[in-house]
Each structure stands twice: as structure tokens, then as C-alpha cells.
């Protein structure tokens, strides 16, 4: 199994397409960091316009922790599209090149082969997230320094102590890994049905875009289906940055406002991932390999 995963990883990283995702993430993060470094004050003034009419806010608000949060908000919606580039190509790519039949001649069961491919897709996903974490979190910490984290939400503001932030990022990236694995599983599932890469890649992207729009649309009729869409739960990482307060409105350091939401979202994502993989397995095991 280990050698099979190695082979699959070799195939992934041999393709130039793989590096598009890493390059895109680096470019996007670089652009945002550059912009905020150069004109972060204007951005902050705009954000704080409402608050600063009644409060004096002192301190290094635009620090690495906040910059990373801003970037994750922007990027984690689009990273699934980059993951689809590889995950949705895992089986259909082989079919397209005519190597799938050759691959299945090997003395391994279809389940083992599929599992190896899926593990390789997950490793690629995790590596992309680690890359994102290195650039967005550590890069921003290096460029902007660290301080307390001042988060402006729609109806309230959260101030997290500097010492109370880093573990939240570990949790958030851990959660993002779960969410992105679900995306990889979806792409992987769709790749069983096609004999070229474009179809499943576009299909995965379309499903994610469609579901994300439904998840964010605030029309009551769609609220019924929202809990069943995995995209609704993909933004659960933000819950790590909301803190509980006690009766006298003091933030409780080390707490999370709604930990049950994180647990629920994680379970939904894991269930989807398993569901997609099992469905892939069922289809693939009975599939006629003609290419």
C-alpha cells in the first residue's frame, strides 16, 4: 500500500498542473500581504470607521494574526477549486491517458488501488494547506508581527489575547483539512464517471460553487436545505475565533463560543468524505474498464 501511495504521489507531483495550485496560493497571499503592508492603514480605517466614532482603539491591530484571518476568509472559499484540479483527475486522468486498464492488471485489488489514489489525493490536499499555513500564517507573522487579535464580525467585535490565538489557528487549519478532504473526496467520486479530466474538474467546481451560493444565500426557503449541504459546514473553522463571555461580559480565555458547532460540522464533513469514498468504491468495483 505504501509503495502504491508513493507511486500515486509521484504521478501527482510529476504533473505541472499540480504546481498551479501552489503557485496560485503563493501569488494570492503575496498580493494581499503586499497590499496590506503598503496600505493597510486605509483598510483598517475603513473597517474601524463605525467603531472609532465612539471608541479609541490603540495597539497593533493589523498584525500577522489578523492578516492571516483575512486571507483565510478570502482563500478557503477558492482553495477547493484548486484541490479539484488534482482530485478530480485521479481516475479520469488515467482513463484519459489509457493507463487505467494497465494499472488494474497489477496484482492489487481495485479497493487497494482506489484507496492508494485517495490517500495520495488527501496528502496533496494537506500539503496545499500546509503551504497555505506557512505563507499566510507564518509569513504574515514575520511580515506584520504579532499582537492581540481584533476581529470585526457583522454584529460584534472579538478581542483575543495574543497568547490565546495560535492554538485557534492550529484548530482552524485542522478543520480546514477536514473540509478540503471532503472536497477531494467529491472530486475523486466524480472522476470515476468520466474518461477525461475536464468533465469531473468542472463538475466538482460547479457543485462547490452552486452549494456555496445556496449556503450563503439568506432566503428563508433555502434555510431548510442548508444544514444538509457540506459547504454550509466548511466555514466551521471560523468558530475557533469566537470566544465565550461570562455573565459580566468578560471573555473567557481559551474558550470557544460554540464548540458543538465545530463538532457537528466535523462529523458532517467526515460523513460526507466517507460517503463519497464508499460511493466511489462501489461504482469503481463494478465499472467496465474500457480505456
Amino acid at each position, binding site marked *: 500500500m505504501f509503495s502504491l501511495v508513493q507511486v500515486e504521489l509521484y504521478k501527482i507531483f510529476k504533473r505541472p498542473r499540480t504546481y498551479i495550485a501552489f503557485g496560485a496560493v503563493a501569488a494570492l497571499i503575496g498580493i494581499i500581504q503586499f497590499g496590506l503592508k503598503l496600505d493597510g492603514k486605509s483598510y483598517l480605517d*475603513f*473597517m474601524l470607521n*463605525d*467603531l*472609532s*466614532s*465612539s*471608541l*479609541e*482603539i*490603540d*495597539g*497593533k*491591530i493589523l498584525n500577522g494574526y489578523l492578516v492571516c484571518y483575512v486571507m483565510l*476568509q*478570502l482563500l478557503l472559499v477558492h482553495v477547493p477549486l484548486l484541490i479539484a484540479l488534482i482530485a478530480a483527475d485521479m481516475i479520469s486522468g488515467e482513463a484519459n491517458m489509457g493507463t487505467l486498464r494497465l494499472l488494474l492488471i497489477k496484482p492489487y485489488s481495485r479497493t487497494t488501488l482506489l484507496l492508494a489514489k485517495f490517500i495520495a489525493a488527501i496528502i496533496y490536499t494537506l500539503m496545499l494547506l500546509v503551504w497555505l499555513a506557512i505563507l499566510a500564517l507564518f509569513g504574515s507573522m514575520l511580515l506584520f508581527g504579532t*499582537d*492581540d487579535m*481584533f476581529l*470585526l*464580525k*457583522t*454584529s*460584534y*467585535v*472579538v*478581542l*483575543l*489575547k*495574543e497568547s*490565546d490565538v495560535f492554538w485557534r489557528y492550529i484548530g482552524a487549519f485542522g478543520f480546514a483539512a477536514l473540509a478540503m478532504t471532503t472536497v477531494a473526496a467529491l472530486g475523486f467520486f466524480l472522476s470515476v464517471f468520466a474518461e477525461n479530466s475536464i468533465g469531473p474538474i468542472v463538475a466538482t467546481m460547479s457543485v462547490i460553487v452552486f452549494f456555496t451560493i445556496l*449556503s*450563503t444565500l*439568506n432566503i428563508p426557503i433555502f*434555510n431548510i436545505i442548508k444544514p444538509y449541504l457540506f459547504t*454550509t459546514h466548511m*466555514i466551521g473553522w*471560523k468558530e475557533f475565533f*469566537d*470566544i465565550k*463571555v461570562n455573565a*459580566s*461580559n*468578560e*471573555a*473567557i*480565555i481559551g474558550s470557544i463560543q460554540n464548540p458543538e458547532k465545530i463538532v457537528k460540522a466535523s462529523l458532517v464533513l467526515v460523513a460526507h468524505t466517507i460517503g463519497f469514498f464508499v460511493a466511489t468504491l462501489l461504482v469503481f468495483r463494478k465499472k467496465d474498464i474500457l480505456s
Partner: protein
Amino acid sequence: MFIFCASLAIAQDASQLIKKVKAKLELVDNYEATGVMKTDIAFIKAPIGKIKIYFKKPNLFKIKKEGGISLLPKGGLSVNLSSLIASSNYTTIDAGVQDVGTKKLRVVKLLPNEETSDVVISTLYINEKESLIEKAVTTTKENGTYTMLMNYGAYSNYGLPDKVVFEFNTKNYKLPKGITLEFEDDSKPLSAAQQLKNKKGRVEISYKNYSVNKGIPAAVFN
């Protein structure tokens, strides 16, 4: 004539009382203190923070949070008492005696003579015996009305409080979802009572370890 003389005497009393309070505060050229600041504003979730407080005559005042972000009500300079009565350019009006909690306090209103002053009126509730301001309600042109409640302890001889509670009005906070990128926010609209509560803010500062008249570099206030 008698009534006129009596009211003049009371007015002079109020001015004398303010002078006594001012004399006490003027014993302090500068101070540095450590403390703890608690911010209680309905739409802000903030932990208690350790702070350092600096004051230098005539009205330099700075609160610094130890390695962090601090939130202070606008017009936070007025958190210190000296700046309330630093100028002599105001008219003093005696408003009698009022019960505040268990204490009987003398109420004195200060009306600035300058039309350009941001302060419209300050009402001071003074402990006559100790010459200490225990409560102050100040209405400003720019920043609304704020109330300060003071508790005194070891440094009452200097007129320096152990605890200051600062109550003020805030504006409703709401940012468009397009800015916060929280499209998934499913929070329900606030009730009228919650909205009213949201408009009140409270900052509580507990002072510890005053270091009085030991000198403070001017750079601290930059």
C-alpha cells in the same frame, strides 16, 4: 438681601470646595500605576487586560495595555480627574447635597466659560469631608455624556482612586456582511431592549501600585 448674601455664601462654598479638591489633586505632578481594565460593551467580547496608566501635569494621560490592543471610550483623556478641573475658566454652581449610595455628597456643577470648550457641563459629586470627587457626570459636545464613579483607598491623600468606573454611550455596531465576509451569519435582529443595552458601555479600571511624583519621560505620551 439676606437670600442674595446666603446664595453668594453657598456659591463661595462650592468654589472653595473645588479649590480644596484641586489643591489635593495638585499634589500630584505625575504618576505611573499598573492596573486591570475590564471593558463591558455589549457588542465587544474582550478579556480583562493588564494596563499601565501614566499621568503628567497639566493633562497628559495615557493608558497602555501591556503588549496588546486597548479599547477606550472616545474622550478617554477624561478618565483622569485632574483634567476635569484643570482649568479655572468655569462657573461653579452649588446644587445642594444628594445621597449617592450610603453617602451624602455635595453636588457642584461646573459650566465652562469658553464657548469653544468641548465640555458642556460637568456635575461633580464631592465628599466634602475628604475633598474627594466620588462621581462625575460630564456632557460633551462631541462624545455625549459619560459618568465616572470613583472608589478611594490608600492614595486618597493625593485624590487618586483605587477604582474608576467609566460609563458612556456607544453607537449601534453593525458592519455589512460584504465587508466582514460573513455571508453565513444567521444572527437574528436585536430586540429594542437589547439595542438600548448595546448603546451603553462601561470600562472599569482598578489601579494598583501607584508611583507618585517619580517623574515620567514625555515620550510615554506620544
